[in-house]
């Protein structure tokens, strides 16, 4: 078949119209077929139509985007910091590292707090997932995953289980047991299956459902007990790197951010995208809902963090400085939403005043890039995990 040249005339039945004609080899989606000259002509013009419709779709998409921007611009009557002009400025902040948790053998990639405000789970590149008591710095549980680069971990709302995943393309749930004789790995349950690495996972309000984000460009909602896929969310055109669920009072939505520079808000029940924001200039590494649920912040490789207001449907603030050149890997709000903590790849943590848009403080201490950052559930502290193998509270 591969030896056929265009000069060879084969006589036989056309693959399309099945009539007996002189045939030409024709390539459709990298498959070789034999068409008669009439069908070959038709296919050539179809191809032209195909391109036309593609171009038509592209221009339609562009014009719709333009229209969207116009609608959004109409509401841009005032800047957030102008609204906040009369708010008292924040004084000097002194934040100290109170605890340093050592024990991971390699880069810490992700961490999450337990609702009891003292326990945390963290995962690292070497496949270890550790549950710590942050008050005493004791390690309560440790599991070794069968894969490396465990990029996502989450604590269940009940405090009885943890979920984690990474290069194994799955999200596994481990029930936590205090029985010394039980092997945690034996009770492992594989819940999610993706076709690429797992980048983020989070339990919903109950222990029974998990939301995952993956390098395959999709997010998915799973039932923990049966492992069944309840809903999948398509729309990102590149790896999805992060997700965050809306605070429970405001409803069933979540926001995701990805390598396509877009942040998207989804309805969990219908699987539909509700809003999309495309103002970042590079991969979005982290998204976090504002405590009121009406806005969310994102941290990106373009060295900025941005605040998007969901009801105004636009970006309302950018947190950046010319001196900050490295990407923000992780962001979280303080309890009131006045402060935004962001961990950067230049080993620092910047604290921003959300309303005024100015930087309040820089925290030094880590010896390598800060990969993950979470404020504790009661707001008394925040924990940062870093590639220097430690976590700091």
């Amino acid at each position, binding site marked *: 078949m591969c030896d056929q040249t265009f000069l060879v005339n084969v006589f036989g039945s056309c693959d399309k119209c099945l009539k007996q004609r002189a045939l030409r080899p024709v390539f459709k989606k990298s498959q070789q077929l034999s068409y008669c000259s009439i069908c070959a002509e038709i296919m050539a013009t179809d191809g032209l139509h195909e391109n036309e419709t593609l171009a038509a779709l592209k221009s339609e998409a562009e014009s719709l985007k333009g229209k969207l921007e116009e609608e*959004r611009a109409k509401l841009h009557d005032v800047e957030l910091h102008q609204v906040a002009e009369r*708010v008292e400025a924040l004084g000097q902040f002194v934040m100290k590292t109170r605890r340093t948790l050592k024990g991971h053998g390699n880069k810490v990639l992700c961490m999450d707090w337990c609702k009891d405000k003292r326990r945390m789970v963290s995962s690292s590149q070497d496949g270890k997932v550790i549950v710590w008591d942050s008050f005493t710095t004791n390690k309560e549980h440790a599991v070794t995953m069968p894969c490396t680069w465990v990029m996502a971990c989450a604590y269940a709302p009940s405090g009885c289980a943890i979920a984690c995943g990474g290069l194994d393309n799955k999200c596994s749930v481990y029930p936590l047991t205090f029985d010394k004789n039980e092997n945690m790995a034996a009770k492992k349950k594989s819940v999610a299956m993706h076709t690429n690495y797992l980048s983020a996972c989070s339990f919903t309000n109950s222990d029974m459902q998990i939301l995952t984000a993956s390098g395959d460009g999709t997010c998915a909602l799973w039932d923990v007990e049966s492992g069944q896929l309840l809903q999948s969310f398509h729309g990102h055109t590149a790896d999805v790197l992060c997700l965050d669920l809306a605070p429970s009072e405001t409803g069933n939505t979540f926001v995701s951010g990805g390598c396509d520079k877009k942040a998207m808000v989804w309805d969990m029940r219908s699987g539909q995208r509700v809003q999309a924001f495309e103002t970042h200039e590079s991969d979005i590494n982290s998204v976090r809902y504002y405590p009121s649920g009406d806005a969310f912040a994102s941290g990106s490789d373009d060295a900025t963090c941005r605040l998007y207001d969901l009801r105004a449907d636009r970006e309302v603030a950018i947190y950046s400085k010319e001196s900050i050149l490295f990407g923000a890997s992780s962001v979280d709000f303080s309890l009131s*939403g006045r402060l935004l903590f962001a961990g950067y790849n230049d080993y620092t943590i910047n604290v921003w005043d959300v309303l005024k848009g100015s930087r309040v403080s820089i925290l030094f201490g880590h010896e390598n890039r800060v990969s993950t950052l979470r404020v504790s559930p009661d707001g008394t502290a925040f924990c940062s995990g870093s590639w220097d193998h430690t976590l700091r509270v």
Partner: protein
Amino acid sequence: MAQDLSEKELLKMEVEQLKKEVTNPRAPISKTGKEIKDFVEAQAVNDPLLKGIPEDKNPFKEKGACVIN
């Protein structure tokens, strides 16, 4: 998955989605910004990281004998 669909199908989905989004209800920033500010001011009283915690209530304070302030 995003990679499995042809460019044309992806664009079609995008166009459908954008058509829906153009009609989303929106509010001006003067209103929503004010709501964010009000929320913050109301919650700021309870925010430990904002106003600091007295040492005796801080669950993370070091238990050493010597504390340098």
